[in-house]
């Protein structure tokens, strides 16, 4: 059923009786042309664009739990393209442009809200650094505004501008950035893929990628063996565990990132605000909860829960810019497993195995990339060529030295 104002009114008059489940629950076929391992945001968008842009039909998405349980439902929902490096910026800008038309494209309300992303700076040298980033963005045709202290005050007057240790001198604003409803993004892509004939196989875990003579032949799953001509791995924090079943070793380490949401408040924070002297980002959901997060827990982990020291760190950073929320109650906090690459940038590439493709290394910036990640990965799987905006996101860049080190910390994933 196509969603529109008419269908909403019609169903209101009929007592909401005719709404159908938005995707099927099919049984696995013995063979598919393409299997995507991982039914998160990126896996679903890959399947969607394979069907939509490339007209491919015989596709399955394997998801070991249910759709929306993984990182696509665990993030802080921020969408932006304020990157610096030439390998990243065109890719994330492509993604932001897809976000801008996503609701019409999917016929699904993902609650995309371009409310602005404001990165605060706290010193003269940091202002220079942000000016450089803004200039890099503008050279790629992406608008950026360097705001001074008074201009920031107009947008977010309640910040602690005269904090003794971290006074706020101004900020870099990307007005086109903002937030989207993360669950709706997963559901919208799932519905779009399903309606184009993609089989979404929930509760179907990929156990072993089967390879014969250097070519992929299928995937052993918890519901039996499924043959496939091409297989794409989009398994986020579990990328290493899936890839090692095909004998691949990757430049990836898995870490936990925690996220937090407070009790619902009346509208307070108009845009996304990030703290420049640490690593803290906060916005307010349409429901009123403050959604925020900070750095990784700094050690490798596959446990999707964090430790308390990072909770303390996050709250301290919140207090450094926004003491007004000190009495707000925390509703819940949770963790997700991040696929941290060695240079902090993603990988969308073929592998050394014929027919096996990989999409990983999203670190903790994967949500905003959801549309372009699927768009470019679908392009790669369908045509065997990298999409122009993703051509630097190669697996072999660590061998050739063309790493994309956005933060400049070297091969230390926990520092990106």
């Amino acid at each position, binding site marked *: 059923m196509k969603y529109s104002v008419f269908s909403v009114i019609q169903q209101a008059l009929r007592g909401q009786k005719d709404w159908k489940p938005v995707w099927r629950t099919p049984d696995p076929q013995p063979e598919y042309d393409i299997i995507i391992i991982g039914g998160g945001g990126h896996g679903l968008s890959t399947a969607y664009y394979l069907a939509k842009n490339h007209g491919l039909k015989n596709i399955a998405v394997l998801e070991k739990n249910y759709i929306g349980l993984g990182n696509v439902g665990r993030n802080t929902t921020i969408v932006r393209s304020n990157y610096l490096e030439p390998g990243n910026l065109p890719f994330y800008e492509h993604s932001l442009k897809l976000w801008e038309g996503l609701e019409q494209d999917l016929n699904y309300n993902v609650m995309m809200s371009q409310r602005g992303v404001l990165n605060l700076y706290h010193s003269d040298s940091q202002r220079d650094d942000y000016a450089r980033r803004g200039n890099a963005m503008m050279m790629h045709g992406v608008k950026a505004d360097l705001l001074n202290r008074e201009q920031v005050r107009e947008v977010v007057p309640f910040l602690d501008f005269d904090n003794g240790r971290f006074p706020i001198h101004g900020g870099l604003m990307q007005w086109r950035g903002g937030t989207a409803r993360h669950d709706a993004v997963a559901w919208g892509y799932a519905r779009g893929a399903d309606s184009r004939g993609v089989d979404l196989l929930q509760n179907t875990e990929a156990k072993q990628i089967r390879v014969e003579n250097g070519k992929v032949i299928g995937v052993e799953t918890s519901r039996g063996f499924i043959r496939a001509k091409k297989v794409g791995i989009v398994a986020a924090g579990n990328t290493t565990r899936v890839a090692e079943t095909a004998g691949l070793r990757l*430049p990836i380490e898995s870490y936990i990132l925690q996220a937090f949401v407070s009790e619902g408040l009346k509208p307070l924070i108009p845009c996304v605000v990030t703290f420049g002297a640490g690593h803290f980002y906060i916005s307010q959901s349409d429901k009123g909860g403050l959604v925020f997060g900070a750095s990784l827990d700094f050690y490798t982990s*596959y446990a999707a829960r964090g430790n308390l020291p990072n909770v303390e760190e996050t709250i301290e950073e919140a207090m450094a810019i926004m003491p007004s929320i000190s009495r707000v109650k925390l509703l819940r906090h949770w963790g997700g497993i991040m696929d941290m690459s060695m240079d902090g940038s993603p990988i969308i590439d073929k592998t050394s195995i014929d027919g096996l493709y990989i999409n990983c290394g999203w670190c903790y910036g994967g949500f905003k990339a959801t549309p372009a990640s699927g768009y470019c990965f679908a392009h790669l799987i369908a045509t065997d060529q990298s999409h122009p905006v993703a051509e630097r996101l190669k697996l072999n860049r660590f*061998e050739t030295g063309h790493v994309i080190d956005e933060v400049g910390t070297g*091969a230390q994933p926990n520092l990106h």
Partner: protein
Amino acid sequence: MRIPCPFCGVRDSQEFSFLGAAGLQRPDPNAPDAAKLFHDYVHIRDNKAGVTRELWLHSHGCRSWIVVERNTLTHEITGSDYASDVMKEAAQ
């Protein structure tokens, strides 16, 4: 998470900083395939789900480098030793 330091005893993990996998061997720069070996040494990781051995620095304590045996699925820590001792044993 609390980490047993062989010198200081059991201490809060906040006193430590994490480097990564222990036991990586720096390759011979004169080897014919040195470029490949160094790529693997710097960038490729096992990233195991389960018991791992990793290097931690007791930076806010005795400043010893230690090797900690830890389960990445449960955060359970089952042992630790001075990194220098581990190196000496490996050399023998």
